[in-house]
């Protein structure tokens, strides 16, 4: 098996992943602490790639750290900052370091980040990046040349189940699977009926799907996401629930909500697992898992 994450996906168990954001700078202590704290509690951890187009320590560097610390990394790679030469080179580097799980993303526009005047690359798109990984595995690069030593990957991609309109997204979702995606981590979902209806459709495809769960930390944070993050829709009753949390205890309510959603996804067998995004609050991931009854 190419990786323990792939093994977990194929075992049929309820898979749990979480994400760790690399630091802005070379002080790796906090990232290292998060990795060590979480590595034995989840099946794998995603390393974000200049999330929201904010320049940081690279996801590949952080994935190498995870590997060195004995964890299971999922390397996130966006198409925003590298052309096809650089993407393929980094894939080779990753595989040579024992990093085989890769999540392919298009990447946010540079205009949304902290280097707004930079050039966005997008030489490949996310489905083409998945296809490139499958090609490299066959010992060929995108230029049609032979590789001296072929890598092996567990390829992943994303989907936004609450996108509006949804149909164009579903076509792209199917193209990612056709290109060779083995697992999907979804954008954050809060609306269970919508997730169920997406899964009723998605279950026909040979791909493992982990539902994205973003921890709500306050009512304003929920409103901010509704206003600013495409495809994320926190229903009013959850915003109200966050707003009604006793002062200073919003986080507990957020953990409870995330735990409740994960429990439902698990108990009703809606998805193959969950991907927990606790943006900046990685230390509460075990609390969320325990609120979900997973530990």
């Amino acid at each position: 098996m190419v990786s323990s994450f792939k093994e977990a996906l194929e075992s049929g168990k309820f898979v749990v992943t979480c994400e760790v954001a690399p630091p802005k700078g070379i002080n790796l202590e906090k990232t290292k602490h998060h990795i060590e704290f979480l590595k034995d509690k989840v099946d794998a951890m995603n390393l974000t790639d200049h999330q929201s187009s904010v320049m940081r320590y690279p996801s590949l560097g952080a994935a190498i750290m995870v590997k060195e610390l004995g964890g299971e990394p999922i390397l996130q790679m966006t198409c925003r900052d590298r052309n096809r030469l650089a993407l393929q080179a980094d894939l080779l580097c990753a595989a040579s370091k024992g990093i085989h799980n890769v999540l392919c993303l298009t990447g946010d526009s540079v205009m949304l980040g902290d280097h707004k005047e930079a050039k966005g690359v997008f030489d490949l798109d996310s489905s083409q990046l998945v296809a490139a990984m499958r090609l490299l595995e066959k010992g060929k690069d995108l230029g049609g040349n032979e590789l001296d030593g072929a890598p092996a990957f567990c390829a992943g991609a994303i989907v936004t189940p609450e996108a509006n309109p949804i149909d164009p997204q579903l076509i792209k979702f199917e193209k990612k699977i056709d290109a060779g995606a083995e697992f999907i981590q979804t954008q954050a979902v809060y609306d269970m009926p919508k997730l169920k209806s997406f899964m009723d459709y998605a279950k026909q495809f040979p791909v493992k799907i982990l539902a994205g769960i973003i921890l709500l930390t306050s009512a304003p944070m929920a409103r901010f996401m509704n206003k600013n993050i495409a495809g994320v829709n926190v229903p009013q009753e959850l915003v109200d629930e966050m707003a009604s949390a006793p002062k200073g205890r919003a986080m507990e309510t957020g953990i409870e909500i995330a735990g409740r959603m994960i429990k439902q996804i698990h108990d009703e067998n809606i998805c193959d697992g969950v991907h927990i995004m606790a943006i900046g609050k990685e230390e509460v991931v075990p609390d969320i898992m325990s609120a979900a009854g997973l530990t």
Partner: protein
Amino acid sequence: MIRSITQQKPEEELEELLNGVNRIFIVGCGTCVTMTRTGGEPEVVAMREKLSASGKMVTGHVTVPVACDNLTGEITEEYGEQIEQADTLLIMTCAFGVQTIAGQLRKMVVPALDTLFIGKETAHGEFNEICTQCGTCIIGETGGVCPVTACHKGLVNGPCGGTDQGRCEIDKDKACAWTKIYNRLDELGRLDSMRKLQKPRNYLGEPSPGKLVMNG
């Protein structure tokens, strides 16, 4: 009709470009910039007033009919003396005009405008980019809507996750190209075209700088 779409440079930038320049000759154009109201006769006159008010000497001005035309050189010849007296030419045309004039008159040129894109007026006072002249046209598979131009990321396999309600993630005033393509193909009963996994784009269509030499 396809047009060169321009916008006046921010005042501070123009001031900096003209810092230390005292005698200026202004050139406007009678074509695209009249539509965007960035470099036609009224804007040229307004610029002359503004520069004079700021203490610069405007040695003269002309609004040529088509600045990117080769005849521009002959027209500006009539203003030989006024041009001669100037240190710098302030050109209120698109970059095609600026380059044409710079190639014909031995003077430093300062562009007063930024050339944004080649596009057309799609509604009164609204201009949209239509084609980026990439050299490898793929719109036969996208219902005639160009994702290379109309998608902020130039994606060729469908929308990114940033699109929302048919709008682009960078600007709610911009349409999502892939929502448009989906709707067009759906209407034509040709969504199969969108389902095809497109290979990475070929950027070798015409390597920059573009040049075409016709044989015979």
